[in-house]
């Protein structure tokens, strides 16, 4: 029953209009009988950021692991129309013995990209995240926010069409976290990738997402999909924070009955 199909690397013809990734009635039951995800439907367009928010055990991580092909669905169909995906973890997940440039170029290297090409891409990405001066620094010499920037730089080096982000800013302090959210939107305006963004923070989900998928637990399911009243735009127009606050409140009430 399970099919995961991937179409061409680059959008051609009608593919530009079709969604980047589609979930059709996808469910996941673990071998111990735990229902991590009950039939789940979602499609994400090119250049669209979809936030997934919900309490622990609501299947958020299962959804993105399915999207990345790290685990197979028990039932349903996932259609992914890109091979160019990047995964950003909660931790920076860097190699301690490699400097910033080699960390950023790592995934490209593993994918077999030539040295000159991957170094050029890495340098460009490092510049984009504002770490040019630290190209030769080792991870231990960087702050938490800087390490996360390195992680983001590594992700954009491969020019991803789909960014899969698993609570990337959860471990950062509030100030750095706000900075990184704006950093991510800035990168999005430059590279215009589609993104699945998982978070525990309702505020973060609303601030970053064009759509917010609110999930509930036991069993993992979609409680509601909410369109952002004032989504991020490519021209960086000022945001209507009041409207966003109202959405935050709506979601808070929706999740009020859920165990944290």
């Amino acid at each position, binding site marked *: 029953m399970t099919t995961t199909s991937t179409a061409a690397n680059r959008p051609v013809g009608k593919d530009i209009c079709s969604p980047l990734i589609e979930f059709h009635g996808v469910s996941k039951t673990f071998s111990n009988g735990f229902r991590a995800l009950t039939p789940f439907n979602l499609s994400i367009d090119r250049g669209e950021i979809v936030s997934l928010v919900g309490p622990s055990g609501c299947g958020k991580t299962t959804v993105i692991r399915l999207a990345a092909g*790290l685990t197979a669905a028990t039932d349903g169909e996932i259609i992914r129309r890109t091979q160019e995906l990047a995964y950003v*973890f909660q931790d920076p997940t860097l190699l*301690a*013995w490699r400097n910033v440039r080699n960390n950023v170029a790592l995934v490209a290297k593993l*994918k077999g990209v030539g040295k000159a090409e991957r170094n050029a891409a890495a340098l460009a990405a490092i510049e984009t995240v504002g770490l040019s*001066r630290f190209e030769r*620094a080792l991870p231990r*010499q960087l702050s938490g926010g800087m390490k996360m920037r390195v992680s983001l730089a590594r992700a954009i080096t491969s020019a991803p069409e789909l960014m899969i982000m698993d609570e990337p800013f959860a471990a950062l302090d509030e100030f750095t976290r706000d900075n990184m959210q704006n950093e991510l939107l800035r990168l999005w305006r430059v590279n215009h990738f589609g993104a699945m963004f998982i978070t525990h923070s309702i505020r973060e989900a609303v601030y970053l997402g064009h759509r917010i998928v609110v999930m509930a637990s036991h069993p993992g399911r979609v409680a509601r999909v909410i369109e952002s009243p004032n989504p991020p735009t490519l021209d960086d127009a000022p945001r209507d924070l009041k409207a966003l606050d109202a959405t935050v409140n709506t979601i808070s009430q929706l999740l009020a009955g859920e165990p944290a």
Partner: protein
Amino acid sequence: MTISKDVAVMAATAAEAEVTTELPIPVRSRSTRHLWRKFVLPPLVALVIALIAWQAAITLLSLPPYLMPAPIDVYDALISRFADMLPAALITMQEAYLGFALAAISGFVAALIMARWNVAERGLYPYLVLLQTIPIVAVAPLFVVWFGPGQATNVLVAAMIAVFPVAANTLQGLKSTDRNLVQLYRMAGAPPRVQLFSLRVPSALPQILTGLRIASGSSVIGAIVGEFVAGVGGGKGGLGYVITLDANQLRTPELFVAVLLASVVSLILFGAVALVESQLLKRWHESALPTEE
């Protein structure tokens, strides 16, 4: 006060050297005199006091040297026996270091195989543990039976006792690689071999070096145990042989010298491993400071 002055001096020198950076510059005192006073002098003073107390106690209690020699007796023994103790120490050194090298290589390779294939780990690990539980003194005579009394046997005994810490620590290190990094490699399509050598082995370096450090001490013990059993029959004996002979004849000062030399043999190897360790791991956090172009 002197420390803060040193720091100020360091900062000034760093500025002069045009190393401008936003990151803290590791402060390393260049004054060897300062280091000598801080790290060498205290244990040296303690040693001198202990030696004086020891000498005084022996003189006051007038104990015979065969029971408890005074430092002077040990010194005399060292001078008079050095000519034949040194070759013995060199033999032990050779056996222990060869055994250590053998254990380091075979332990590392065994751990690689066990980390790469789960079935290999399930199949081999119990026997590795078993190898560790066998009392080395009990097996040494068997080795003599199989390989004859000689250096080869002692090398094998040393290797046998040293292989477990290397293999167990290396395996532990190889298996405790960050899950997310493993996932990153897998998603990038890196084959297991690349994952092993580009990710797992460097990640495991601290544990591998810990294993080697433990093995450095064990291998000397192994060589001496081997000599207790095997070296007695042979003409050329190591320190273990010397210890057996001198113990039989109650030449206690000579025993002290043998013990001293054995620990020197051990210390040299330990120091070499520690040096390699500091050189390898220092790179992770000290070197490659970003400089402005």
